[in-house]
């Protein structure tokens, strides 16, 4: 219904503004409706203002900025309705060291309401893990899974 949709937009807009301000201190962000008169059909756009820069569409951001802004939108929606699980495949690939730290903070904030499954090549990202799994091919073409006990430092077959 119209009322429900506009309430959802308002709540996600609020969340997007807050999460974005954590990731880009001094920046701002908003969820806008392309045609507010037609709530049942209107498309949705995301506009962001990076610290010290002008308002612009997500398209014009850099690779790393786009990744972080997309995650801010996703997590803003989770504030309203958490997903039971969230699966992220190498989302930290475009991020610099500082933004990897921001991502880690974001994951820690949401881990109580959402279970995360995350693939990464970044040693820093691994630091927030509650469980680490290694996958390897001891025999070519055959994958095996083992869990890594970081406190003990060695690995044991899963």
């Amino acid at each position: 219904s119209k009322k429900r949709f506009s309430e959802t937009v308002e709540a996600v807009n609020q969340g997007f503004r807050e999460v974005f301000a954590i990731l880009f201190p001094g920046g701002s962000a908003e969820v806008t409706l392309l045609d507010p008169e037609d709530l049942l059909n209107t498309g949705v756009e995301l506009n962001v203002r990076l610290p010290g820069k002008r308002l612009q569409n997500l398209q014009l951001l850099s690779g790393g900025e786009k990744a972080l802004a997309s995650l801010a939108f996703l997590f803003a929606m989770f504030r309203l309705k958490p997903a039971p699980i969230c699966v992220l495949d190498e989302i930290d690939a475009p991020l610099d060291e500082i933004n990897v730290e921001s991502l880690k903070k974001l994951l820690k904030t949401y881990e109580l309401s959402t279970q995360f499954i995350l693939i990464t090549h970044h040693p820093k990202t691994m630091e927030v893990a509650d469980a680490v799994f290694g996958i390897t091919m001891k025999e070519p073409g055959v994958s095996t899974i083992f869990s890594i006990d970081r406190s003990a430092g060695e690995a044991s077959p899963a």
Partner: protein
Amino acid sequence: AYLKKIDLFGFKSFPDRQEMILKRGINVIIGPNGSGKSNVLDALLWGLGETRISTLRGTNTQDIIFNGNHRRKPMASAEVSLVFTLSQDDEEKVFLRKSFRDGESVFRINSQKVRLKDLTDDLYSLGLGDRRYFFIEQGMVGSLATMGPLEKRSLLEEAA
């Protein structure tokens, strides 16, 4: 609900039965290029009822069944089980999907044979309906930025 275990047997690069026992918080998977990390996520998607083979990075339905290596023959079937712990009373629910090379498929919920639609309905009630809401594929993290306005709207409606 949270996902307690993923069990793979004959799925893509997993000819030997393998399982991953997950924690509630943040589970991280690491490993060399080509070792099978994204294959595990494909197994999770397939177990959740995904039917589009292109989403599973294949071109035909047999691409998800182990197709052999220099000393092993291709396998006849692939099987994935997902074990969820339901939030209330630690009750478990096991979703199993199995497919044969000839195209036959079997779906089970707690060993009870069901249709695909029963499986996806059940998962929907656990909050695992629209995949875009909880799954970001490799290389696609900026995709929310490039999604069209109507697609963004339909994603937003998931949060309602």
